[in-house]
């Protein structure tokens, strides 16, 4: 009982802290849409780095990732390092820096807006936003399901799923609506630092108890079930699987609205440069301890019942209750840090790329700010209500979201770097790859794997081919602005 009280106090304490940070940020917030979505493009290195980091990696790093390492071995560290530390960092420059320059020059706030302007098409703008929301909504719902379930498990049912998920939803709405991007970024920074510190303390604590890394690894090697974990590769971690996963998720991350939008929010070129160089180090610092704990738990014979997560259990076995509670509270907070950013981005995609172009073109800036806040509340509430029914289709979509977003990446890259791309080309490429990938999920006749390569990766290739082919045989529409991604960029 004492543990439950302690855990609840820590979580409620965190929620109040997040709200307080939100209120401080609120005092600096202007009433414009750009400030609400992008903190007026002023984020500094630490805040940008940690907000992207916390937004991206949170819940997975604490729960699903260690679970995979526990079941299949620690090679997952390599997959994460490649996808997030290297591929995403390169895209940070190739897509992110270019988008940042374009945002500075033309005031873009969303990906759809940027593409719609270049291709002279509000339909393309709406299409990109609609596809993004289609993948984003179920993903937000999954976060709420995760948070509600974890809270229920943590308190032994004292807080029901509905109450837990509902409480978190209300708090998120409060501070996102109040403080927008600035509030989200600041709370994320707190969380990112908190996650790093607690993960390392947890690792050192467990190692001190079991007698160091050599002892933990020897335990792994001595059990016949896990002896294979130490050798690189397995029937699960095949080269095709490692590459498919790292490439689709790495590219998918760059197209996730809440990550992509951060490309517009950096305060300066220096901020982008520093974040870019620090990125691989940050990934290693978080993934190695968290996934090693998962893998070592297998050798230490920590039993994980069906549906439970390994990290809380190994902490329970080797560290005091208060510390385990602290880490789990951190993980809950981490789920929120992903959701709050997604709510904000989802709302901006909706108001800017769907509402404004198709419903009310004369929307004023301050009215848009108001509408965006309403959008956050509606989006969050709708995802919460959906999470109560837990529809299977939404679960499938949420789990496939990274690969779904990855389908957008290559057409967008072509748009940014290839002058011959046409509106027809990019539209066809986006529709074809999305259609193919959806079919691989829901149509039995379309397989999900091709000689070990995932449908997500094959779909990306298909999108690339079709964008190029259709662009080559069509001519640009009259209102396309073919030069705006190239001329006068970065003129200091």
């Amino acid at each position, binding site marked *: 009982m004492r543990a439950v009280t302690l855990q609840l106090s820590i979580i409620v304490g965190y929620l109040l802290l997040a709200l307080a940070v939100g209120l401080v940020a609120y005092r600096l917030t202007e009433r414009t849409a750009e400030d609400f979505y992008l903190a007026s493009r002023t984020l500094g290195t630490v805040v940008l780095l940690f907000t992207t980091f916390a937004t991206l990696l949170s819940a997975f790093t604490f729960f699903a990732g260690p679970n995979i390492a526990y079941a299949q071995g620690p090679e997952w*560290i390599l997959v994460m390092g490649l996808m997030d*530390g290297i591929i995403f960092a390169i895209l940070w420059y190739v897509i992110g*820096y270019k988008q940042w320059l374009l945002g500075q020059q*033309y005031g873009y706030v969303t990906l759809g807006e940027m593409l719609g302007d270049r291709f002279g098409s509000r339909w393309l703008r709406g299409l990109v936003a609609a596809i993004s929301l289609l993948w984003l909504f179920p993903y937000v719902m999954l976060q709420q399901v995760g948070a509600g379930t974890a809270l229920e498990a943590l308190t032994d049912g004292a807080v029901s799923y509905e109450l837990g998920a509902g409480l978190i939803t209300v708090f998120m709405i409060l501070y996102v609506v109040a403080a927008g991007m600035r509030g989200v970024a600041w709370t994320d920074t707190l969380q990112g630092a908190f996650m790093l510190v607690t993960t390392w303390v947890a690792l050192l604590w467990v190692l001190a108890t079991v007698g160091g890394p050599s002892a933990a690894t020897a335990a792994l090697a001595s059990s016949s079930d896990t002896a294979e974990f130490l*050798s*690189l590769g397995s029937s699960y971690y095949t080269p095709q699987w490692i590459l498919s996963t790292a490439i689709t998720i790495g590219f998918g991350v760059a197209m996730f609205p809440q990550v992509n939008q951060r490309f517009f929010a950096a305060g300066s070129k220096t901020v982008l440069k520093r974040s870019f160089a620090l990125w691989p180090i940050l990934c290693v610092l978080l993934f190695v301890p968290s996934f*090693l704990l998962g893998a070592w738990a297998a050798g230490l014979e920590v039993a994980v019942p069906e549906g439970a997560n390994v990290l809380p259990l190994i902490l329970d076995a080797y560290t005091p209750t208060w510390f385990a509670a602290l880490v789990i509270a951190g993980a809950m907070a981490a789920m929120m840090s992903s959701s709050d950013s997604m709510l904000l981005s989802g709302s901006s995609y909706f108001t800017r790329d769907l509402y404004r172009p198709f419903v009310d073109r004369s929307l004023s800036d301050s009215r848009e700010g108001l509408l965006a806040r309403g959008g956050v509340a509606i989006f969050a509430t709708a995802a919460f209500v959906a999470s109560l029914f837990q529809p299977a289709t939404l679960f499938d979509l949420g789990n496939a979201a990274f690969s779904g977003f990855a389908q957008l990446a290559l057409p967008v890259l072509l748009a940014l770097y290839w002058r011959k791309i046409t509106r027809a080309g990019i539209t066809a490429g986006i529709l074809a790859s999305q259609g193919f990938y959806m079919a691989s999920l829901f149509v039995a006749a379309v397989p999900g794997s091709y000689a070990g390569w995932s449908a997500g990766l094959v779909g990306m290739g298909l999108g690339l081919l079709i964008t190029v082919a259709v662009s080559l045989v069509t001519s640009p529409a009259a209102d396309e602005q073919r030069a705006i991604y190239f001329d006068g960029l970065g*003129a200091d």
Partner: protein
Amino acid sequence: MHRNELGVWIAVAVVLAGLTVPWFLWGSATVVAGLPVWLWWHVGWMGLASVVFWVFAQRAWGIGIESTDDDGSSERRVGGPGRTREPRTGGDSP
């Protein structure tokens, strides 16, 4: 010159990504100081990547993206949005 430099950086990026997973250690289970050798390689490689990214940020940031005046067509910054021009060298391959 500009184009060569871009090619070098693209090659560096491909090598960095390509060896993040030490394929040459496939199947190896050698343990050094409590961790598999392939994991040490990965940790060291990510450190190296960070250094390379830092050098890139200091020396070549903007390559392939920013308009430059050093490749022969000097009026690069004059043309405003909406005016088309000759394709220029540069641009990262996707």
